């Protein structure tokens, strides 16, 4: 009898489980018009943020319902119009004129130049929670000669203005102007009833589960193919991969370690692209060990970058001899730092490394906690040990890392292994290397004070002629190759995996998730 009871309990449980399976299966494979993805998974995502003014990442998803004036193309090679049909930059780089597209907000109101002026004023005011305030600081005024023209006047040229504008999603004045600026960030509008001009309209946010947007039939680029997009949230890429394999989602970012498991799967397509983040070993210039250029050069010769790229990155990274790897910005004839441990030893001897530090352990701090980077640092540790440099990796979480490197206890981070965005706009690197960007002003966390590097960066940033600009950034490359403020390592590739059922799907591993022109209105999914 007892066993009988147990058996019936088990039977009920089993029936429940199978019954619910049967019921839920059609739900997973429901009407083909829904595209579900982990659009905020990985380094380019920012789950739980709905406020584009506060966004440091997550643009891939935000541009499904918001739109900026201008946007990078999908190849990340040039900036093109989005809400601006066309735009012009004056020769002195002080006047930007935008001709606006005829667009409507999701509530039917017309999008006008007044919205542009409103959004820029809001983003310039850090009380709104905007992280763009400083970057938009050079905007002196926004003029609106008519409803379809917006003219931005700058007080001084800003080389990265267009790049910054790609991250500025246009916001509706009629919906937001009534909310006091200080209360804007805390307002529920962002995650409840936001309206944009994009191909999809915000529908709902199931807290920490997913965000749903539905097709905007009035989109000026045509009604979207898919009826809705769903952005599912995952704690980590591994959980998203499980959902991808289980057929619950059609797309996610994946860590490079996991890519090989998709290589032969016919149901999936691997999307590969450069991370546009240059990885480097940073030398804290406040630490006397690194004053001598020969010591920094020794790092470049002692680390066998090709071997690491081949064996650990599976070949999916490009060695960086300066802060750039894009041909456009890399001049001929710079030092290639081919692996040469003997030369490294000789350089260290010349610099008197034995007296300077010898084999005392030196911490190398990193915020990368992936197994891949753990292995990379172990390889570096072994290679540097060969020439007499004893590094000890220390991986911490991002907040800990930031609190250390922006602090002034320099002994805690004599060396770092880090990355910084070096594209698509090459001026992104300025904040990490220009002397004027030493904290608290910027993110020159290695406190690099190298006149040649700073001069090259200043010249490139101030260059108003487009053709001369490439040459100016080549000078930045030269200066960082010769002075080695960092031992530049490589630019690794990043990956997404999409179901082959997706059609016209565009994605690229852009830093911060772009934004880039992905045309979500054209995405569809085969039944």
């Amino acid at each position, binding site marked *: 009898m007892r*066993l009988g009871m147990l058996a019936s309990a088990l039977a009920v449980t089993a029936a429940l489980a199978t019954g619910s399976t049967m*019921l839920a299966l059609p739900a997973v494979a429901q009407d083909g018009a829904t595209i579900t993805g982990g659009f905020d998974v990985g380094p380019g995502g920012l789950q739980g943020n709905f406020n584009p003014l506060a966004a440091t990442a997550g643009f891939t998803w935000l541009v499904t319902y918001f739109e900026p004036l201008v946007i990078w193309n999908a190849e990340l090679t040039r900036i093109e119009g989005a809400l601006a049909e066309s735009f012009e930059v004056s020769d002195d780089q002080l006047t930007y004129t935008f001709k606006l597209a005829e667009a409507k907000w999701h509530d039917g109101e017309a999008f006008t130049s007044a919205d542009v002026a409103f959004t820029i004023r809001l983003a310039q005011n850090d009380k709104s929670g905007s992280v763009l305030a400083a970057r938009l600081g050079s905007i002196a005024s926004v003029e609106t000669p008519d409803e379809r023209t917006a003219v931005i006047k700058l007080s001084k040229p800003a080389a990265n203005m267009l790049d910054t504008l790609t991250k500025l999603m246009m916001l509706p004045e009629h919906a937001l102007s009534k909310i006091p600026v200080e209360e804007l960030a805390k307002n529920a509008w962002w995650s409840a009833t936001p309206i944009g001009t994009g191909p999809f309209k915000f529908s709902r946010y199931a807290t920490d589960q997913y965000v749903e947007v539905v097709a905007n039939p009035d989109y000026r680029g045509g009604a979207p193919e898919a009826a809705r997009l769903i952005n599912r949230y995952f704690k980590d890429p591994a959980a998203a991969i499980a959902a991808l394999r289980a057929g619950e989602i059609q797309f996610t970012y994946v860590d490079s370690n996991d890519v090989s498991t998709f290589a032969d799967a016919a149901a999936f397509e691997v999307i590969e692209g450069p991370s546009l983040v240059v990885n480097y070993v940073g030398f804290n210039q406040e630490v006397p060990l690194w004053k001598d250029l020969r010591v920094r050069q020794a790092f470049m010769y002692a680390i066998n970058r090709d071997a690491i790229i081949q064996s650990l990155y599976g070949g999916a990274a490009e060695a960086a001899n300066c802060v750039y790897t894009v041909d456009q910005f890399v001049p001929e004839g710079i030092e290639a730092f081919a692996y040469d441990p003997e030369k490294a030893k000789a350089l260290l001897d010349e610099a008197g490394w034995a007296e300077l530090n010898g084999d005392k352990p030196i911490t190398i701090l990193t915020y990368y906690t992936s197994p891949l980077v753990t292995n990379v640092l172990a390889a570096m540790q072994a290679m540097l040990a060969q020439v007499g440099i004893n590094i000890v990796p220390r991986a911490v979480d991002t907040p800990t890392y930031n609190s250390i490197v922006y602090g002034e206890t320099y002994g805690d981070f004599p060396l770092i292994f880090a990355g910084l965005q070096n594209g698509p706009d090459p001026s992104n690197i300025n904040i990490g290397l220009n002397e004027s960007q030493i904290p608290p*002003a910027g993110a020159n966390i290695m406190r690099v004070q190298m006149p040649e590097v700073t001069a090259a960066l200043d010249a490139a940033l101030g260059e108003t002629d487009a053709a001369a600009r490439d040459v100016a950034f080549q000078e930045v490359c030269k200066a960082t190759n010769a002075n080695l403020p960092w031992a530049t390592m490589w630019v690794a590739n990043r990956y997404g995996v999409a179901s082959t059922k997706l059609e016209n799907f565009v994605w690229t591993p852009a830093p911060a998730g772009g934004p880039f022109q992905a045309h979500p209105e054209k995405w569809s999914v085969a039944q």
Partner: protein
Amino acid sequence: MLRYTLHRLLIGAGMLLALSVLIFILLRLTPGDPIDAYIDPNVAISQEEMAALRTRLGLDQPLPVQYFAWLSQAVQGNLGYSIQRFDQTVAGLIAQRMGPTLLLMAAGLTIAIVVGITAGVIGAIRRNTLPDLSLSVLALVGISSPAFLTALLGLYVFSVRLHWTPSGGMLTPATPFSLLDLLHHLILPAIVLSVGYTSLIMRYTRASMLEVLNQDYVRTARAKGVKEFWVIVKHTLRNALLPVVTLIGSTIGLAVGGAIFIETVFNWPGMGLLLVDAVGTRDYPVIMGATLVIGAAVIVVNILTDLTYAVVDPRIKVA
């Protein structure tokens, strides 16, 4: 009884206050603040902007000032706003998460109690037979398997390989709510959560049953010709359950910890996931609020267990 209850509640309130101070201090000793968590090291942002944000959030105030500012609001029921999810109140976030966590814990504990006690009884009455030995081995495996391992294995086998259960979440996106859909999502995390407790309850029940089975009054009952079923249920199990009840009460606190693991692996939108997220992003108000609520829940459950125990066992007095 009333005096005892009030006394316990008062101690509980004191414990909560101490807990809040402890968590506050621990948090501030942890390197990095919410603003540090907001900076993506790959995509640099000016520190001036971050410093302005820090000032606005009051993070540059002296610690005691910050603590009392928080406490004075908290006692009035205002737990403040999340720092990382600007537009959401801590109380709102916690309220949304409470239901899913309670559901998960209730389901897990129910499975653990039903299966654990049944298996324990079977083990005791079929002592040293094949069923008993197999159950004991299973229990040993269950107790020694860490929750995150069981969870990952379960996920791999039942979701990725067999496609029996969803890989995570609580409801299928973009479909109307259905109870079966909820149960479908619930079953795997609940079973995984229950594994450890089932084994524990089974071991306790078995040991306690064996002890009681040797008592004189059981032999007397049998001698009087009471049917074996009633001997087990009425005379043995009822007496054997006392220590098991205590165990269940005291493991509820532990179950909260287990739920945090399970929620993270299965993306179950409960308190655990909220807390893990908040710790990762140093979202101070959320961590303080969530810990306080979990602490209060554990304290209340413990008081209830003590009171229940006194009711169940008349030998215990709570004067």
